[in-house]
């Protein structure tokens, strides 16, 4: 939260005006932004989790949750309440402080990453000039929490899980960042809002056809998606959890609210990463390439929209996020898990070279045109 407080004076201050910056006072926008980020942080994972439950259920010839709330929509709320009620066990051999802190260390960065992600025209807490850099940096801190949990549990399975998670992060952070850099190079900015803007202005070489970055950087998008999956430990890269090998990986010894925090981290990570992909590659809150949102035709179709335009923009953004979340769920349903060494091999022998190639191509294209 310090970033937020200091943002008014720091040199990397907001580029675009957030609609949450109402009035002249300092405290009202601050509270609004806090509420906004926390709201996204708690509601987003619930929606993503519900989508996962339902989509997975239907793909597996089941119904998914049906009892809690209409169509089972409150299932995750019920789960949350259950977790809070459960006994919070700490193994006697555990390193108690580290064990207790680990879920928090995993959780907070996932929340912080949401600070700079724009969810619609002007709907963001902060537009950092270094937004992209900040998101990637913040989200990679989460793995510390995982490592701490794995180490402090005093359980061999947890330790394996934690170490696997560490190895996985190091291996996949690189292609992730390289792919993201390519986007930054093409857009010419690190600001996430700026990248969305740049996508609205990007024309296919010399023609008047507006395109999102997913087309010119299809390779980069693929790399980013796979790397994001690996970083989130989502199947088929869920070796840190690997429930049929490592019982439950680094979460084996966790129960109750701490376990719920880990789960929340995972789903919040899914939302954050999906949102990031939408911003970087899928044109943010634009409905279609080159088609301005209704109500905001004036400012390049991206800002200063009316109420409808804003709501529509947010809706489009959330729709795209959920679509990506759905794809992640789909992969989980369809595939078995890879092996740790195979994962490393893919990272270093395939992903990193491809990401470098992608970066080189984008740079050359940028220079030539």
């Amino acid at each position, binding site marked *: 939260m310090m970033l937020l407080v200091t943002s008014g004076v720091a040199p990397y201050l907001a580029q675009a005006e957030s609609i949450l910056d109402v009035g002249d006072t300092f405290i009202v926008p601050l509270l609004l932004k806090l509420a906004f980020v926390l709201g996204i942080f708690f509601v987003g994972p619930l929606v993503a989790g519900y989508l996962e439950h339902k989509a997975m259920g239907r793909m*597996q010839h*089941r119904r998914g949750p049906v009892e809690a709330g209409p169509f089972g929509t409150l299932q995750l709320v019920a789960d949350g309440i259950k977790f809070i009620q459960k006994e919070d066990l700490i193994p006697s051999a555990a390193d108690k402080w580290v064990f207790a802190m680990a879920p928090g260390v995993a959780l907070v960065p996932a929340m912080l990453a949401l600070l700079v992600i724009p969810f619609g025209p002007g709907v963001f807490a902060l537009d950092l000039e270094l937004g992209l850099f900040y998101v990637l940096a913040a989200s990679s801190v989460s793995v510390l929490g995982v490592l701490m949990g794995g180490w402090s549990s005093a359980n061999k*399975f947890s330790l394996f899980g934690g170490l696997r998670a560490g190895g996985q992060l190091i291996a996949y952070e690189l292609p992730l960042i390289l792919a993201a850099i390519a986007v930054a190079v093409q857009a010419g900015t690190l600001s996430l809002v700026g990248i969305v803007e740049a996508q609205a202005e990007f024309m296919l070489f010399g023609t008047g056809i507006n395109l999102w970055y997913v087309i010119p950087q299809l390779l980069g998008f693929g790399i980013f998606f796979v790397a994001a999956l690996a970083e989130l430990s989502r199947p*088929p890269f*869920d070796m840190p959890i690997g429930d*049929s*090998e490592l019982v439950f990986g680094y979460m084996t010894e966790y129960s109750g609210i701490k376990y719920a925090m880990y789960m929340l981290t995972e789903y919040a990570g899914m939302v954050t990463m999906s949102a990031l992909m939408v911003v970087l590659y899928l044109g943010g809150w634009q409905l279609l390439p080159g088609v301005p949102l209704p109500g905001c035709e004036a400012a390049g179709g991206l800002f200063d929209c009316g109420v409808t335009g804003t709501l529509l923009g947010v809706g489009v953004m959330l729709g795209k996020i959920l679509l990506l979340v759905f794809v992640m769920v789909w992969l989980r349903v369809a595939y*078995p*898990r*890879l092996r740790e060494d195979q994962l490393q091999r893919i990272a270093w022998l395939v992903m990193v070279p491809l990401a470098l190639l992608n970066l080189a191509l984008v740079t050359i294209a940028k220079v030539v045109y």
Partner: protein
Amino acid sequence: MSDLDLRQEFLAGTAPGEDIAVQLSGDGQFRTADMSLSIGPAHPATHGVFRIVLDLDGERGREARPVIGYMHRGFEKLAEHRDFRQIFALVNRHDWLSGFSNELGTALAVEKLMEFEVPDRAQWIRMLLAEWNRVLNHLMFIGSYALELGAITPMFYAFREREDIQHLLESATGGRLHFTYNQVGGLKIDLPKGFLAESTQVSSLVRSRLPDYFDLVLGNEIFHGRTKGVGPLPMEVALSLGVSGPTLQAPGLPEDPRVTEPYLKYGEIDVEVPVGENGDAFDRFYCLLHRIRVSLDIIDQIHDHIPPGPVNSKLPKMVKAPEGATYVRIENPLGQLGYWLESDGGRTPWRLKMRTPSFSNVQAIPYLMRGQLIPDAGSILGSVFFVVGDIDR
């Protein structure tokens, strides 16, 4: 290392699981210690109370020692105090996924000892239900093996099919796992009306859904990556360890009592034995999946063969087997099941020795797991198909 060395080494060790000691290795500059990891007795990968002690160097294991016996229920001894009617309720429980086949083996053994001629109709119906039981069993293992590799979905599909089949079997036998449908001399009661029609229908339904498993699991590249070349079991080792069923067919030996030593009426129909090439986990799974298809083929053939007539014959009030001993082996879903039945002329077996396929199959685990990674250990464990109750009995 030859398999003989392997076995001697294995036998020379102390009691399994008790010699867990920390060994120091390395050249003395950087001291590392092997870690011993106890997988089980309650672990998701062992589906049952089965334990494996792995000596690990990082993620790579050096030795693996299976520890069995957590589920010993003393069926062989219990059977000595149950009469020939009651033992059927015992034998369908040691391998709870192959209840019907176990009953069948027992019935055949008792009938052989009594030199009892079972009516044709009963024999065909026994075959029909035994094949259905095989499909049930294999579906379960397809689901659980995929689950072991982290794919959750095939399990649900398999259970959907299982539900249809269990419904079918329930309508005839009244049971879903423990059928208790065989008796000495035939079957308890004839099939209900409409059973064969429903059986035909379920058979074509399951057959129409089989491609899903081929597409979802067998053809998947990640699945290939996890199973091809993992845990190969050469033919000689397989033979000397006494494994059977898909585990033996995977190295390429088409050994199957249904073909090589036909019992019931298997001699009158075509039975195909799918075999693999390398004997690795992939081949074992491949054989398993194809065995479902073969069983469905057999089922379809049986439908055309069932003659009218009685399904059981008149028995004396007290069934007593004459003095003597006999051995019967049949192809259980997981491999060869043998019953050694010895009678002293009384109303209970004097000795009922079970040679269960799971027990023999897990003998291959120390060989297969040597030097494997932890994830591969799971993959191997799942591919040597076993039921813990069938190991411990």
